[in-house]
């Protein structure tokens, strides 16, 4: 057996107030955990789906087909991001508790906020990397298909003896459906949405002891969140001067995030212009929601007994 250190030697690490190093250590471990859980098989499925969608050129025109590739791709990215944010986040804390890994982590000089932040960041890094990977695959395929359609359509129109104006118009229509740098904003919107979903889920998992309960409630909040603004407007119309309703609506707005603020990305992928103030307000709202739910989670987790 090797010698242990003498007891009077100072311990190796000293505790700072909040340590970025410890947060990152937990985030990195969460990242490894999720990656080794074969998360990235989803990416393979995504690539296969995209290639299949990109080659279905039986029924659609070039413009329609490019539009379909974009809708399928972003729809899949969106689905992956929010679903993964709910399921992965809901599993993390209860599993640590069940396996008593939480005991060994929290008996080290780790603040509870560091643990929560580390878990959240770990999930978000996996989502971000997955989204970027999917976006790169999507961009490559879209670019290849755009060039392909452009050559084919132009050749067909030239053969058919169409005018240069008509050929030009068709070419522009195809290019307009191709890759645009604004699509990064759409990707950013999907990521921010998943960050809000993950923070809601992490808050719920500090209260609940069951992953299934967390997944169900988080999904319900997600679904209701798509109609929250509509519901608030309805209540306000029905009870115009009622202060209690106004307060309840305000509380509802905080408890149930308005997921509709992210939906403008659908317009972006179809070629609409990006309005900078919408991007800023969406980013600000997302940070607000993440902050609120993280704080609520911390309030519960801070005094939680294990």
């Amino acid at each position: 057996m090797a010698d242990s250190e003498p007891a009077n030697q100072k311990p190796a690490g000293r505790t700072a107030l909040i340590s970025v190093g410890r947060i990152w250590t937990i985030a990195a471990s969460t990242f490894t955990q999720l990656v080794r859980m074969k998360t990235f098989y989803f990416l393979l499925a995504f690539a296969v789906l995209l290639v299949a969608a990109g080659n279905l050129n039986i029924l659609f025109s070039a413009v329609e087909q490019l539009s379909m590739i974009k809708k399928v791709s972003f729809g899949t990215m969106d689905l992956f991001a929010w679903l993964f944010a709910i399921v992965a986040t809901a599993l993390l804390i209860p599993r640590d508790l069940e396996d008593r890994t939480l005991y060994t982590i929290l008996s080290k000089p780790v603040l509870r906020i560091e643990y929560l932040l580390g878990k959240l960041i770990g999930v978000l890094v996996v989502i971000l990397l997955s989204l970027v990977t999917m976006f790169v695959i999507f961009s490559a395929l879209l670019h290849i298909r755009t060039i392909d359609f452009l050559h084919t359509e132009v050749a067909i129109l030239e053969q058919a003896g169409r005018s240069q104006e008509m050929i030009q118009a068709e070419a522009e229509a195809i290019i307009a459906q191709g890759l645009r740098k604004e699509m990064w904003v759409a990707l950013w919107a999907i990521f921010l949405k998943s960050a809000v979903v993950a923070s809601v889920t992490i808050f719920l998992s500090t209260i609940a002891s069951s992953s299934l309960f967390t997944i169900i409630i988080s999904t319900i909040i997600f679904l209701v969140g798509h109609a929250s603004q509509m519901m608030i407007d309805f209540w306000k119309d029905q009870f115009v001067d009622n202060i209690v309703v106004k307060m309840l609506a305000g509380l509802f707005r905080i408890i149930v995030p308005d997921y509709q603020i992210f939906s403008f990305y659908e317009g972006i992928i179809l070629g609409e212009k990006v309005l900078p103030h919408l991007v800023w307000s969406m980013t600000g709202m997302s940070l607000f929601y993440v902050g609120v739910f993280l704080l609520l989670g911390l309030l519960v987790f801070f005094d939680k007994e294990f």
Partner: protein
Amino acid sequence: MSVPAVEVTNLTKVFPVSLRKEYVVAVDNLSFQVNAGEVYGLIGPNGSGKSTSMKVVLGLMAPTEGETRIFGVSSRDVRARNDIGFLPENPYFYKHLSGAETLKFYGKLCGMRGRDLKDRIGELLELVGLEHAKDRRLGGYSKGMLQRIGLAQALIQRPRLVILDEPTAGVDPVGSRQIRDLILKLKEDGISVFLCSHLLEQVQEVCDEVGIIFEGRMRREGKLEDLVSIGNQTSLVLENASSELVDKIERLIETEGDGAELVEKGNPRTTLERMFIRIASSEKQEKEEN
């Protein structure tokens, strides 16, 4: 006098059991201390409050009343945990990490980095005999191996206090002996050890001081030798005594004993286990009578 490694003062922990204001007192006004460099064993049956006390000491639970301190720092203060290494009962670590990665993870949580961490990992893998399995994922480790990697993670930041909850639960006799030797080695190096165990023989082998807890209250506490000795009995241990001499002594007791009588020949001693059972059953009997 040096600051105690663990100081538990009038600790009470109450759990609500329903919404009708019903409570269970898990720990009732418990006080004890583990002196620096000492091996202290807290023993008691299931549900006696051992693990609850341990969790309060570790800061995983808040006391209802009283306080716990680690080297003078409140358990609620995260800095107290710089000095603690903890091994829970039947530990499960991240299955996706290898043995070396697990130690690296815990080392980093303690602020260790670079060469120091790398060397420490190598040192501990050697200490617990898992060098051959350092790159294997923990999902493929046996129970005994998990216990040993658990011990290594507890020691990663060179803590001054090691807290062990049933350290040999589910470990085979050989592994159990290794853990016992390791505890003795820690003691030799001046590291304080606070352990809970059901394996009373083992507690007897390694502990300097023992506390017996039953229904949340400390029933007996003290130096091991004092606890296991029988106050009104005296043992004479003779070497190479002839049977004539033994007979002579017996006759002497009969004739000039002044009330003294020979209880048994041989080595009159109790075991911690026997004493523990005696205390537990008398408490139970007392409770039933009331």
